[in-house]
């Protein structure tokens, strides 16, 4: 091993290896970085949806529920047996399934892993770790409007 003149301790060979190694690493990084970015889709600018017409009161009998579209996610509006109207996110907090209203249980239920939520959206039993997100309900005539973050 001949040390490079003026650089004690570094042999010519290890210097060349270092150059080759870093060049190869940089080439790989330059090739892989675009691939890494490419596989994640760009953010699509969507108008934030905060309030939607979820259902018509006349279509919603007592002790029934309806899944509605809230932006890109499903929501659920429930008319209890006593006539109150409530709304929640329909995305189960366990593993992302879409919940439903079970008239026989008189509460919200997820079919995927048997999760139960009460009429306040609170997780009653089964695997769901958190309550459902609660939405604000406004009734204007026959229209049931649901508002997020209220």
């Amino acid at each position, binding site marked *: 091993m001949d040390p490079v003149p003026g650089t004690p301790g570094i042999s010519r060979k290890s210097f060349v290896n270092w150059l080759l190694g870093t060049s190869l690493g940089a080439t790989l990084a330059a090739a892989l970085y675009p691939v890494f970015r490419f*596989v*994640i*889709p760009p953010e*699509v600018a969507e108008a934030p949806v905060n309030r939607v017409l979820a259902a018509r009161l006349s279509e919603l009998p007592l002790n029934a529920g309806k*899944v*509605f*579209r809230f932006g*890109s*996610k*499903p929501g*659920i509006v429930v008319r209890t047996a006593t006539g109150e109207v409530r709304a929640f996110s*329909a995305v189960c907090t*366990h*593993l*992302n*399934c*879409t*919940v*439903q209203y079970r008239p026989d249980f008189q509460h919200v239920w*997820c*079919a*995927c*892993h*048997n999760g139960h939520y009460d009429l306040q959206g609170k*997780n009653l039993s*089964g*695997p*769901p*770790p958190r309550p459902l997100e609660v939405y604000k309900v406004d009734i204007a005539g026959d229209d049931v409007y649901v508002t997020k973050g209220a």
Partner: protein
Amino acid sequence: MRLLDTLWKALDERLELAPLVEFATHKEVPQHRHSWAYYFGGLTLFFFAVQIATGILLLLYYRPTAEAAFESVQFIVTRVPFGWLIRSVHSWSANLMILAAFVHMFSVYLLGSYAKPRELTWWSGFLLLGLAMGFGFSGYLLPWNELSFFATRIGTDMTSKVPLAGPWLLTFLRGGEEVTGATLTRFFGFHVAVLPMLAAALLGLHLGLIQRQGMHVPGHLAEEARTRKPLRFLPNFVLREGVVWLFGLAVLAALAAFFPWELGNKADPFASAPAGIKPEWYFLFMFEALKLIPATVLGIEGELIGLGAFAVGGLVWFLVPVLDRASAHGRRSRLFLALGWGVLAYLVSFTVLSFLGAFQ
């Protein structure tokens, strides 16, 4: 025949093929009371070949978009001549392939065949089973029906629990935040391009290793294998394997013809998950266990504990050739033998009990 002779001579002269033929004609398969286990890897390979053939046929009509996927599969099973049969064979063969792979894996495990020097064969086989399940998971979504839609929502949501990389993995798999047509197109790409390429490479390695090292004879059967005359690979073992394949084909044809695979209802991203929803049978053991774990255990989310336990279990299973030190010296460890039987008992009992509706 003279033409074949001439062709053979021409090829042999250029590629020196004689040593390969020499190797194949001298190859022998040991015989003992558990030699039946040697046929299940081949049977898995047979079903994989059926998957490739029927998969290519389905590609002629299938369209991987949220708008057209369900309708294109409907067209295949209702209008295309024998379309119902090709699709049904593809679905059934996928399930039989996983079943054969499980039998193969457990027979290899319980006979201790993972031991040194066959660690690489075990690891490549483990990864192949992972790929097979990946094929199953990605292929399940392609008809874009209700069940597959929710199975994909659940399965991809599980990846989001992976520490650090979770959110990235979720977006990578779904092609966005939610399961949409973008997810379907991606899964199609994984199913017909990425996974087959990986499987071909791993399968080549797996089979190459087996050819190089020969069949494993468990220590306690060595005496029996010494006294019994081994089977010649060509033509005896190949012919017997052929009979097993024919048996596999008969079972496959009967299942596909008498129990055509259902298509179900088209996926609706804004509908509730249907009651009675279940994943494919080979995920049932995990599905039922996740249902049993409470919402929180010692202040930690139950699902995290469940998924973490499966991850650790998978890692232990993968590392068994290293962890079971006695195996490298030709001894059987009682602990690892008990572990194998325990895992098998858990998988079989949970799957059967789930089918019987014991977890309702």
